[in-house]
């Protein structure tokens, strides 16, 4: 396994940049997710690493080798395609053996490595089946075994779970992560599912419009989003727009006076002028309307969504702002139209200037 360094990677189609100056590193044995909305350039970036797209600018380095100009068949990356791309005319075992045969490995060793790769994904009993005769989840595991069997220097996963149903997805998530950690595979995973990215990755790369917005651990991205886009894409947030009227003082568009941090998300001093406050839903407390401490705002329940382990309550403040609060459980049943008392700690507020 090797370190992967992507530096200044850019792909321009006509006058449209699908990826712009993308730079990041993936350490040995690390799993990093490329996360972002549809069309943000995740697949483009991954395919430039695999060698299927020639970058307009920038370089890809695996270990010590600059592979930017190397053909895909000489890069030694293992890719799991979104649609698995299994060879339909080969059995499961033949699929897994293909990459080993291309490396001119002897028959006995091929059999042994195919066997162990299939055992790893618990599919050794299906070795002689054809891809069309196994389920989608099993196909996904064959694709993974095929990519891992060649002992690639970097493992590339393109939305590996998107074709699985919700229940299976959670199980495979854990399987992939366990396998990746056991084999210490340097891995890049493309996904547009933030839950997937947060649960599986050591670090995340959040992209938008072909540009990297923020790189960090799941915790860093959740707790310290650097831009409004990040705060919005990773987890939920209530956004309140308005302006900073004095250091630490904020007036919303609707006119509510709120306290705000003195620095913005990037750490710069927050000057007076337009700004947006963001508050995570679990930081927002709801209480009975009669409550007065801690100091807060009067509000009215607009919508309650019950999600089993938690309840999301959408509340409209008396001054007009909409906020969302996540509760573990309701002490007293809340229903739409009920008045309530809304409060949050000043420390839980993040401010963005854009």
């Amino acid at each position, binding site marked *: 396994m090797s370190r992967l360094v992507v530096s200044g990677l850019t792909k321009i189609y006509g006058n449209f940049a699908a990826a712009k100056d993308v730079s990041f590193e993936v350490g040995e044995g690390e799993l990093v997710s490329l996360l972002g909305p549809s069309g943000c350039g995740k697949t483009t970036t991954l395919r430039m690493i*695999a*060698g*299927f797209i020639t970058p307009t600018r920038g370089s890809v380095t695996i270990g010590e080798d600059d592979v930017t100009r190397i*053909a*895909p*068949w*000489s*890069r*030694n*990356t*293992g*890719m799991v*395609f*979104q*649609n698995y*791309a*299994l*060879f*339909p*005319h080969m*059995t499961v075992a033949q699929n897994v053996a*293909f*990459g080993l045969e*291309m*490396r001119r490995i002897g028959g006995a060793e091929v059999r042994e490595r195919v066997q162990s790769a299939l055992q790893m994904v618990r599919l050794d009993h299906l070795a002689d089946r*054809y891809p069309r005769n196994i389920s989608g989840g099993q196909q996904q595991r064959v694709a993974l075994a*095929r*990519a891992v069997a*060649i002992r690639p220097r970097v493992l590339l996963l393109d939305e590996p779970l998107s074709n699985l149903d919700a229940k299976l997805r959670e199980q495979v998530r854990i399987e992939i992560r366990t396998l990746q950690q056991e084999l210490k595979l340097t891995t890049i995973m493309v996904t547009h599912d933030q839950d997937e990215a947060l649960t599986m990755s050591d670090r995340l790369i959040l992209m938008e419009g072909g540009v990297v917005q923020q790189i960090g651990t799941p915790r860093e991205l959740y707790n310290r989003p650097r831009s409004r886009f990040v705060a919005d894409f990773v987890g939920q947030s209530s956004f309140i727009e308005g302006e900073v009227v004095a250091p630490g003082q904020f007036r919303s568009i609707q006119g509510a006076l709120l306290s705000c941090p003195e620095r913005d998300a990037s750490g710069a001093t927050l000057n007076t002028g337009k700004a947006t406050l963001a508050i995570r839903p679990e930081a927002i407390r709801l209480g009975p309307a009669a409550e007065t401490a801690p100091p807060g705002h009067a509000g009215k329940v607009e919508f309650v969504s019950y999600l089993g382990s938690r309840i999301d309550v959408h509340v409209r403040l008396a001054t007009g702002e909409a906020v969302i609060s996540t509760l573990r459980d309701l002490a007293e049943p809340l229903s739409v139209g009920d008045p309530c008392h809304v409060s949050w700690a000043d420390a839980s507020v993040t401010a963005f200037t854009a």
Partner: protein
Amino acid sequence: MTRTTFDRENGSVLSAATLAAPATLLVAAGLVVPLAILLRYSLNQFIPGQFMTEALTLENYVRFVADPYFRGILGQTIGIAALVTAICIVIGFPLAYVLARAGGRFKSLLILAIVLPLFVGNAVRAAGWMIAFGTNGVVNYVGLGLGILNQPLEIMYTPTAVIIGIVAVNLPFVILSFQTVLEGISRSVEEAAFNLGAGPLATTRRIILPLAMPGIISGATLSFILTMNAYATPVLLGGPSFVMMGPLVYSQVMTQMNWPFGAAASFILMLATLVLTTIGHLIVQRRYSSGRN
């Protein structure tokens, strides 16, 4: 399965066989009846001076098989058909691949270029080749003019002219039947092969060829049958000295007025074509479809 569906929906027994009946009848009337008549003719006797004498004899078949001249023509026809088919596969496959992977306006243009010749009859196209290949034709004019040739090429009335002419006729059919299967092979399957370390050659051999085999078989079969039965191209480009089976049958029936022998020759041609394509299918199937269910 089809049957039960029909039963349930219509409440009446409408089997697939019933639905196929009109088409079957049409095929029978249009194909089997003329063939039966032809078979009957081939068993008749030919006495010069008389048209056709009712008989039940195998002498026409015996004459064909016994005469090295006729056997030679059959052999020559089979040889040309095999060669033309091989050339069509070699030229057609890369072209079909480009076509299958092309997109947008380039693709429409390519398809147009491939289909357009089909609008012109074989005979007209062969006449075009005559103009190109003649001693004073375009090929020699350009070749001599540019100094590539120091004496005119004699292409007309050679097997080469016939092969070029028939390849040009068959190529569109071959390319289109290849293209259909190649389009069905997803690009990501190819990329998966690349990713696993297979270069373009290994990918073609191990992945694309086996997956494209059904289309290659049908395209090659089409080309083989078309060549075995070619008429206009061999007549116009091969001239009187280079004879293939199609022109032989024609001259027996129309010039010699020997209908029984012409009929026997066509039956031998048909049989040879059928046997050879069947053998070809079996060989290819054994080689490429082993283990597939």
